[in-house]
């Protein structure tokens, strides 16, 4: 008995000694780990062209204007902006309290340096087209910039909000050896570049001096894990806090886990089946409308995509400025048959649907679903699967050479402004090879409206113009409007304040981890 007591007190003593050896309680480091499927190829603004790069870079290098989740354009590095009555000169007033991570002051000279660099044809920035209407960037004061345009271009401010046009410290760029591109960007953002181990991760650390107030996170680690199943397992094992692109079949299991939260957000991409409006029978709008009524979008979204979609109600998604819900087309096979009969095809017809494989989520299965649903109204569709590069080359031919009939494709309005989603695809000046209007659709009223919206600076008027254009396009139906893609991510339930933007970007500057 005595011996036992002795033992117990000895153990207690040891435990208390161990406890005394512990360091005093400190605030644990706020470190967020995000697993993405794709590594940013580069963080150099004049080279960036994909959303993983935009996701990481926007924490470091900021654009002049911030595009909010709801599609509104908010002041950021630019406090305010206004356009001259003729629409040819935009004046931007800049914040005066901003410094780059290397201490270089942010001012009008820095903006000119960055925009000139982005616009320089020799630099061949893939997204130069966003602001190519700018002919001159003028320094009109220490913190005032005037942008001169060759023609009025209303979407300019929306385009300036793009994460690819991030502001780099001119000092840091000029210090680069001749011909070298930026590897570790130096910007004005809430986080600073800390480490990039290629193939593994990028680590950012909080910018204590951030003009918007220091973020609550101390570090963000962006991990690159290409395999979907591995990302899910890393989340389940507690190795990471947030993962991109959860496969639809894993969603129910993750939703049942109390420690995991499934996050959904709309994306900017629409998936559609285009018609070649120059060839029979698709030169008849009745046929095109009929095929729209023949498709059960709800079924495709639920059973093919596992919920990762939303039936399209316009040729652009709701997050895009200028969106107007004209639909969706109801699923009504009876009406489809009736319209086909009116168009002179009471027994339907045969045609071909071209589609890519592995480019979009479940693209082959979606094409097969369209095929099966069209068969119900008497339209026999032969599917032709093509490899992506060959597919693009096949589709992008001038009208006299084009041989496609129906084609499955997607389009992401990455600028979140309707101009980019509608002009390139529906304006008749954009028929290949000039642009991507692969349906050879032409409606002069639509052309006029899209032209007008381009040069109307008044937001309400622009919105009304796009509404009118979308209604006409919807009625003419140069596409089978299918669905908007929905992003499905997942995270630990302890993550707070993290935003999943429609542009497929995770924004973590207001995030923290609840301990």
């Amino acid at each position, binding site marked *: 008995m005595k011996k036992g007591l002795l033992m117990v007190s000895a153990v207690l003593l040891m435990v208390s000694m161990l406890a005394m050896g512990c360091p005093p309680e400190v605030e644990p480091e706020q470190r967020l780990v995000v697993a993405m499927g*794709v*590594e940013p*190829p*580069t963080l*150099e603004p004049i*080279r960036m*062209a994909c959303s993983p790069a935009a996701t990481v870079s926007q924490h470091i290098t900021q654009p002049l204007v911030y595009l909010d989740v709801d599609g509104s354009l908010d002041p950021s590095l630019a406090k305010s902006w206004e356009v001259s009555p003729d629409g040819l000169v935009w004046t931007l007033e800049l914040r005066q309290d901003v410094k780059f991570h290397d201490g270089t002051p942010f001012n009008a000279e820095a903006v000119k340096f960055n925009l000139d660099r982005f616009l320089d044809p020799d630099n*061949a920035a*893939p*997204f130069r*087209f966003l602001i190519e209407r700018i002919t001159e960037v003028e320094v009109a004061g220490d913190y005032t910039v005037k942008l001169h345009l060759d023609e009025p271009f209303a979407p300019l401010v929306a385009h300036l909000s793009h994460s690819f046009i991030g502001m780099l410290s001119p000092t840091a760029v000029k210090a680069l050896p001749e011909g070298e*591109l930026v590897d570790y960007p130096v910007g004005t953002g809430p986080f600073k570049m800390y480490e990039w*181990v*290629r*193939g*593994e991760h990028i680590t950012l650390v909080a910018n204590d001096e951030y003009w918007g107030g220091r973020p609550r996170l101390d570090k963000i680690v962006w*991990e*690159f*894990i*290409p*395999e979907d*199943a*591995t990302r899910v*397992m*890393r989340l*389940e*094992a*507690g*190795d990471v806090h947030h993962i991109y692109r959860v496969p639809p079949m894993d969603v129910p299991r993750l939703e049942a886990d109390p420690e995991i939260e499934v996050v959904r957000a709309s994306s900017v991409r629409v998936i559609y089946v285009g018609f070649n409006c120059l060839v029979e029978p698709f030169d008849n709008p009745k046929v095109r409308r009929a095929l729209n009524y023949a498709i059960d979008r709800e079924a495709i979204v639920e059973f093919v995509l596992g919920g990762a979609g939303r039936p399209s109600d316009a040729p652009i998604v709701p997050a895009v400025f200028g969106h107007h819900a004209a639909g969706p087309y109801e699923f009504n096979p009876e009406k489809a048959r009736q319209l086909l009969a009116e168009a002179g095809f009471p027994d339907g017809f045969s045609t071909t649907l071209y589609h890519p494989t592995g480019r979009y989520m479940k693209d082959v299965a979606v094409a097969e679903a369209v095929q099966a649903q069209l068969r119900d109204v008497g339209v026999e569709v032969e599917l032709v699967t*093509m*490899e*992506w*590069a*060959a*597919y*693009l*080359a*096949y589709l*992008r031919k001038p009208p006299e050479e084009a041989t496609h009939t129906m084609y499955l494709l997607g*389009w992401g309005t*990455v600028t979140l402004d309707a101009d980019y989603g509608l002009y390139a695809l529906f304006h008749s000046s954009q028929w290949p*090879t*000039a642009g*991507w209007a692969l349906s050879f659709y032409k409606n002069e009223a639509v052309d006029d409206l899209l032209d007008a919206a381009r040069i109307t600076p008044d937001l309400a008027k622009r919105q009304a113009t796009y509404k009118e254009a979308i209604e006409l396009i919807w009625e003419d139906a140069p596409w089978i409007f299918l669905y908007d893609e929905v992003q499905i991510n997942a995270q630990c339930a302890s993550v707070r304040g993290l935003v999943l933007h429609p542009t497929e970007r995770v924004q973590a500057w207001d995030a923290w981890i609840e301990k």
Partner: protein
Amino acid sequence: MWQYVLRRLILTIPVLIGVSLLVFAMVRLVPGCPAVAIAGVHATPEFVEQVRRDLGLDRPLHTQYFIFVGNLLRGDLGVSTRTGRPAATEIWDKFPNTVELAMASTLVASVIGIIAGVISATRQHSIFDSGSMLVALFGVSVPVFWLGLVLMLLFAVTLDWLPAGGRGGTIEYLILPAITLGAASAAIIARMTRSSMLEVLRQDFITTARAKGLRERIVTYKHALKNALIPVVTIIGLQSGILLGGAVLTETVFAWPGVGRLMVDSIMARDFPVVQGAVLLFAVCFVFVNLFVDVLYSFLDPRIRYE
């Protein structure tokens, strides 16, 4: 001996020329224009044209090939269209990781394979023998990505013993990928060791050794195994070459930052300079591993002479 090595080295030249031709043709035979694919959906025709010029695709085919080989000899693989960095840098950065994984899995495969093979041979027709050969059959047949995911599910998610993928720099990150990648090779090595051992154990000098009264352990490991290892070494050599190149799936599943995964990422992005370089590197490694194994023979078995 050195003459033999020299002759083999000279013989690798036509092989490497063949490889360079194949790699060169590969990119040009891809359907559609690589320039269109690289420039992407949103590109303007001018930008596509610029990419085509940058890639040199506007020149005659034979000129393109000579430029390609000329650059190659200077170690210039071109610039990665995905990252804008030299392709050689991209590949060279990742190569040590692939070698690390290939060596670890060769080690795992050799240890497991030889032990299982020897025990199976010495206890032919026992339960262990049939059991281990059954496992070996499983090891050869099971798809790598499936095995990887199952191991991860078991050891990382359910048991929480090991990390689920990534390369943290410590040995625990290496264990699961090495086992996954080495499984098929372990099975092949086990089967090879077993049959080679069985053959040797039937030979007269083994009977002599036993007749001398040597202990069975000495007979097995000192006399039989040493002689049975020669074909096994060949297999290990060949397998390590395969492991070097076969890491593509394992590296993708485990997010291991090696050349295999780089190759997958580059194929997805149609980053042809990097794909070309990675394929070339794998081919060169395979050729030299083979050469090394052939040379190793003469050291293992003094009876083998190269004339």
